[in-house]
């Protein structure tokens, strides 16, 4: 590639970003343009003779539905300001008509509908909860069946008794029941009762909505502010859609903002109405299975943990529980601008399978075992294979899993307990200010970790972000954990990609040691950031958890564990006398893995547009045990004027040819000191745990096979084909036999 071609490439990377006002202006106009055509004035539709006649026809022919149809029609008419002339030919006023409707509503025998819950994310996308309610409603009773997915979790019967409402609930998941008495009768959730409300508010409806197809039927919708019918905030709205042909309600939505939950809004939806359901006898008669026990009174905690725990106790229990984990599975979602694909991860011992999904399609897959990492990028059809180091593999995964699980930072509310779906959780909360690395989003953060009281394992991790100068918390990231999932298919951990994919094997990259000349670097390993340096004194921190989960933090100089930080303004550390403020703006590199060498990263730092520092960093875990005894860091800094080609690889070549232009820094950090003042000893002290975890059954099996065959040469060959740590562990196993 010549200079001009490189320049052309560089030009192609430049992209401008529009101002926020332009974004807002454009999207607002586009939104109007998109919506404009979809909305044909409902008045025109209703005013058409066929629709008007159809309505009366429905009223005449479906007697039981008269009330609801009248309610629907009247709601629409008055909302539109059409008043009575369309439907009543001027023979009745709207208010009089509403009275007629109310009396007709009483004639409805039964209604059935489904209620579900939709979360509107900050980017406008929607997520529907797996929990649904199925309602059966009659004149004086109703029943709610609550499903989690396909599973019936609970039935609630609401039946009248002595002027009050008796609520009988049966929890099939807990095998319990409860009986409560409420003052008054129906609540506002019941659809007929809600229609009664709307009928009373007909002349105050706010606006018509665009046409919408619901369950295959064209519907016309209307919106009303919830503040008009109760002590509700102005921002709550209710929308009702009616079947354009039958004029029967097809969908009712109540929407309210839910910024405190990190989402834009939550919508309670009632739809799939059946206005003439088959309701078997006994539908409204509470039936409590004989072996079910009575649940505790509402408000009294139910838990296997009797006494309150301190934060330290909670963390210690969690650590112990994590240590016994064999497999796990989690799904991580990131929301909002810059969000990546949904990541789904399975892990068993040292084997990991991860996949990224965007809009339901795979975009990448990732397999790891103690000897290698295989990544398959489906979009580029590119496979990269790297050497692996097992603890660090898990470290990578741990970064994603529990990077916020830094115990002393949790200003935990260990007594804060939440019951959800029949289980009790302790909720720890971590406030802070930070940047979500790699996504480039920063601001005030708030993270909550839910710990299952029964298993002591993390169940859910939720992060929220409040960008600078904003008031609104945004849901940012959520992780749901499944520990020791019973059946993980074995072939999940076996790399699988098309033979036509382009394979790049990075395993042959030689390692770089002290004083050794570094090889030219494949450009593809320098494309993604992993850490950011600021002020020249930042350093990654690794905490390795006994279960292999790793906390990775970025700390600033005054918190470095080894004496004087390598500030480049110090002449001893900066033989070229560069000014500190000129130095590192950023580190741009990617971790790569080399057998026995720990982690090596490569990056470059541009200074002032004319000078560059090239930086190579490595850290190597030394010693046995899940937590290594030491971590050795090596940083190589080079300074040389950027050549005219301004190409990084050419620059690296030039730097390395001139030993006076680079300098190596080396630090060895005693890990235990590094860790023990922050994490209780018991969390990481785990004798011989490493051998149990690192050596997968497959490795053990191979060793056993060769040993059983008495083929010592093959045994040696096999052991020496592994990395140094695996070699040590295999030797130790062999020695014990």
């Amino acid at each position, binding site marked *: 590639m010549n*200079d*001009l071609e490189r*320049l*052309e490439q*560089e*030009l*192609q*990377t*430049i*992209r*401008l*970003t*529009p*101002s926020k006002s*332009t*974004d807002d*202006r*454009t*999207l607002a*106009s*586009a*939104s109007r*343009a*998109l*919506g404009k*055509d*979809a909305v044909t004035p409902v008045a025109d539709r209703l005013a058409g003779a066929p629709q008007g006649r159809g309505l009366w026809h429905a009223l005449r022919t479906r007697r039981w539905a008269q009330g609801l149809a009248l309610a629907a029609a009247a709601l629409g008419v008055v909302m539109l300001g059409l008043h009575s002339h369309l439907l009543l030919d001027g023979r009745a006023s709207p208010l009089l008509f509403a009275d007629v409707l109310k009396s007709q509503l009483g004639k409805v025998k039964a209604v059935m509908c489904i209620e579900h819950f939709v979360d509107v994310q900050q*980017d*406008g*996308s*929607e997520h529907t909860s797996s929990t649904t309610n199925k309602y059966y409603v009659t004149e004086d009773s109703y029943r709610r069946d609550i499903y989690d997915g396909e599973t019936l979790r609970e039935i609630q019967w609401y039946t009248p008794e002595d002027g009050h409402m008796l609520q009988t609930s049966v929890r099939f998941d807990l095998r319990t029941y409860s009986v409560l008495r409420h003052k008054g009768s129906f609540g506002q959730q019941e659809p007929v009762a809600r229609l009664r409300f709307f009928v009373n508010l007909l002349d105050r409806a706010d606006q018509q909505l665009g046409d919408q197809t619901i369950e295959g039927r064209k519907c016309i919708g209307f919106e009303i502010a919830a503040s008009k019918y109760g002590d509700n905030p102005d921002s709550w709205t209710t929308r009702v859609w009616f079947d354009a042909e039958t004029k029967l309600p097809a969908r009712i939505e109540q929407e309210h903002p839910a910024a405190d939950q990190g989402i834009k809004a939550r919508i309670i939806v009632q739809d799939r109405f059946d206005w003439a359901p088959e309701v078997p006898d006994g539908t409204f008669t509470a039936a409590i299975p004989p072996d079910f026990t009575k649940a505790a009174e509402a408000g009294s905690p139910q838990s296997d943990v009797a006494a309150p725990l301190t934060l330290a106790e909670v963390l210690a229990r969690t650590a112990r529980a994590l240590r016994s984990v064999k497999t796990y599975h989690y799904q991580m979602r990131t929301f909002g*601008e*810059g969000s990546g694909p949904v990541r789904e991860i399975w892990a068993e011992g040292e084997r990991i399978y991860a996949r990224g999904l965007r*809009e339901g*399609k795979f975009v990448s897959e990732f397999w790891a075992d103690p000897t290698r990492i295989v990544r398959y990028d489906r979009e580029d059809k590119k496979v990269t294979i790297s050497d692996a180091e097992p603890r660090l593999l898990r470290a990578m995964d741990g970064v994603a899993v529990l990077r916020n699980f830094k115990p002393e930072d949790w200003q935990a509310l260990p007594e804060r307990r939440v019951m959800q779906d029949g289980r009790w959780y302790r909720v720890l909360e971590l406030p802070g200010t930070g*940047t979500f*690395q*790699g996504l*480039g989003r*920063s601001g005030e953060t708030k993270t909550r970790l839910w710990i299952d009281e029964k298993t002591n394992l993390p169940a859910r991790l939720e992060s929220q972000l409040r960008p600078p100068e904003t008031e609104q918390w945004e849901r940012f990231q959520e992780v749901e954990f499944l520990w020791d999932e019973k059946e993980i298919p074995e072939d999940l951990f076996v790399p699988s990609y098309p033979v036509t994919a382009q394979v790049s094997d990075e395993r042959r990259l030689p390692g770089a040691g002290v004083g050794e000349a570094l090889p030219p670097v494949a450009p593809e390993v320098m*494309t*993604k*950031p992993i850490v*950011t*340096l*600021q002020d020249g004194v930042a350093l990654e921190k690794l905490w390795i958890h006994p279960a292999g989960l790793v906390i990775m933090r970025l700390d600033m100089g005054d918190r470095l564990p080894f004496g004087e930080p390598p500030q480049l303004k110090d002449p001893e550390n900066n033989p070229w006398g560069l000014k500190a403020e000129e130095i590192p*703006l*950023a*580190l*741009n590199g990617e971790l790569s893995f080399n057998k026995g060498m720990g982690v090596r990263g490569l990056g*470059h*730092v*541009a200074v*002032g*547009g*004319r000078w560059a520092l090239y930086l190579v960093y490595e850290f190597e875990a030394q010693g046995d045990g899940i937590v290594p005894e030491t971590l050795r860091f090596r940083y190589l800094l080079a300074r040389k*004027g*950027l050549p*005219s080609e*301004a190409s990084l690889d050419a620059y690296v070549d030039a730097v390395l040819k001139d030993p006076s232009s680079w300098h190596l820094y080396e630090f060895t950090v005693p890990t235990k000191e590094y860790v023990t003042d922050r994490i209780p000893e018991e969390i990481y002290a785990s004798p011989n745990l490493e051998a149990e975890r690192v050596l997968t059954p497959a490795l053990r099996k191979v060793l056993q096979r060769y040993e059983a065959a008495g083929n010592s040469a093959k045994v040696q060959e096999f052991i020496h084909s592994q990395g140094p740590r695996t070699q040590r562990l295999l030797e130790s196993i062999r020695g014990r036999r």
Partner: protein
Amino acid sequence: VSEEDWDLISAARSGDMAAFLRIYERYKSDVLTLAAALLGHKDGAEDVLHDVFVSLAEGLPHRQPPVNLKGYLLTSAANRVRDGFRRSKREARYQGEAVSSDPSGDGSPAALAAESDRAQFLWRSVLSLPEEQREVIALKVYGGLTFKEVAERTGTPMNTVQSRYRYALEKLRATLQQEDVQ
């Protein structure tokens, strides 16, 4: 059109604003950069960006979706510059516009900061090119056109287009080298 573009267009055609937002986020920088490179300034380019996407939104319900969405948007931007915005052309000016690297790269703010000096200098240099050279750079680099297509579009012989492109690159390289030795 990519499968994903197709899905987004289909959803946007039925009024799905979230889908339209995805389209906008995906291509707004491409459109803005092309328009700014053609115009020589960003302010007018933001107007072009606005009009291109609003026009897309207006047309979606009525017209067949474009086969190549990115190409359609870029052509639409270039046409708008040609047909209207040149008349209100302002002096090229540079006031530290937000220049970023390709978002498909590492994308971290820190990495962008590190690269921004050079990227900003390079962008300034592009804007200071003579108009006919800048136009070729814009259409070729940011509009994705071939020399033949640039020639047809600008009504200029292809040899001339190629020469202008080469002169522009050489000028940019010289400018960068001068900056390096200062």
